[in-house]
């Protein structure tokens, strides 16, 4: 699953997802990527979030909505990402989830549980994308 966040030069924020979902799913199943606040969320006044993982669990927690709202209430991106992941892990200890959260001023951080998660980023005058490895909580 791709979940992507973009902030343009004017500070406008958008987010999106695209995926072919989980393999061997029951026909008709929709994953979290299509659910606002689960696979992605963005508010230009605050920041944005992208997510990947066990979508059937993640859509029950709207982790990206949670993370953005946590930033609105003052949390730093890293803390907001970890809080959203921890809420899922508390109820589903085996869940695999990865979140990347970006504040409106461009600070980004990730959190994961159940696996080692990676995210890529490119900003300003960077010539190529850089990769951040996020260890599981």
């Amino acid at each position, binding site marked *: 699953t791709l979940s992507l966040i973009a902030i343009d030069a004017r500070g406008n924020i958008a987010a999106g997802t695209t995926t*072919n979902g989980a393999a061997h799913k029951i026909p008709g199943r929709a994953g979290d990527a299509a659910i606002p606040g689960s696979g992605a969320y963005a508010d230009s006044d605050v920041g944005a979030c992208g997510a990947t993982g066990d979508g059937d669990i993640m859509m029950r927690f709207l982790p990206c909505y949670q993370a953005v709202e946590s930033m609105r209430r003052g949390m730093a991106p890293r803390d907001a990402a970890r809080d959203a992941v921890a809420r899922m892990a508390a109820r589903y200890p085996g869940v695999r989830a*990865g979140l990347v959260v970006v504040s409106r001023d461009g600070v980004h951080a990730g959190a994961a549980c159940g696996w080692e998660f990676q995210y890529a980023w490119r900003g300003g005058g960077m010539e190529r994308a850089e990769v951040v490895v996020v260890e599981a909580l």
Partner: protein
Amino acid sequence: PSPFPLVVNTWAGPFTVATDAAFLALAGNSSSSSDPSSDPFSLSAATAIDAVHAGCTACEAARCDGTVGPGGSPDEACETTLDALLIDGRTLNVGAVAGLRRVAAAATVARHVLELTGHSLLVGDQATAYAVRHGLAEENLSSAESRAACDAWRARGCLPNFRAGVVPDPDDPECAAAAPRAHD
């Protein structure tokens, strides 16, 4: 130095094609070869939503690690279906599709839902019909890889699927070990 424009996305490796496509769209160096005059979502003055669309579209075309775009993650019936979403953080407007059948450009359909409807989410065959009415082509989303994966899954004695309370039991440890755990 300013951190903007800025693109951040899940995963690395093949997924950086999306990072680069979105970043270059914002930087005004779109690699799109389409005629801007015929492109309803021209990147000539790319905004954040243009960049997200460009990044998602690039990943779909590249079939990033097999989990994005056509030809991956077959369902029980061996069909590949797609989910996509775009959200504009200025307006909190959302366009999304789920269980999209036979149309490869899922992010583009989501863009149409975002900008050309008052809805947020279209699903299944009716999302396909909407996409076709907007000029997108219907095609078979299977690939040799997805057909092989589905055949192998069906050939196993235990089906590591998403059903619960049925036989074979997908939670049986032997079944769980027979195939990697699928995820979004």
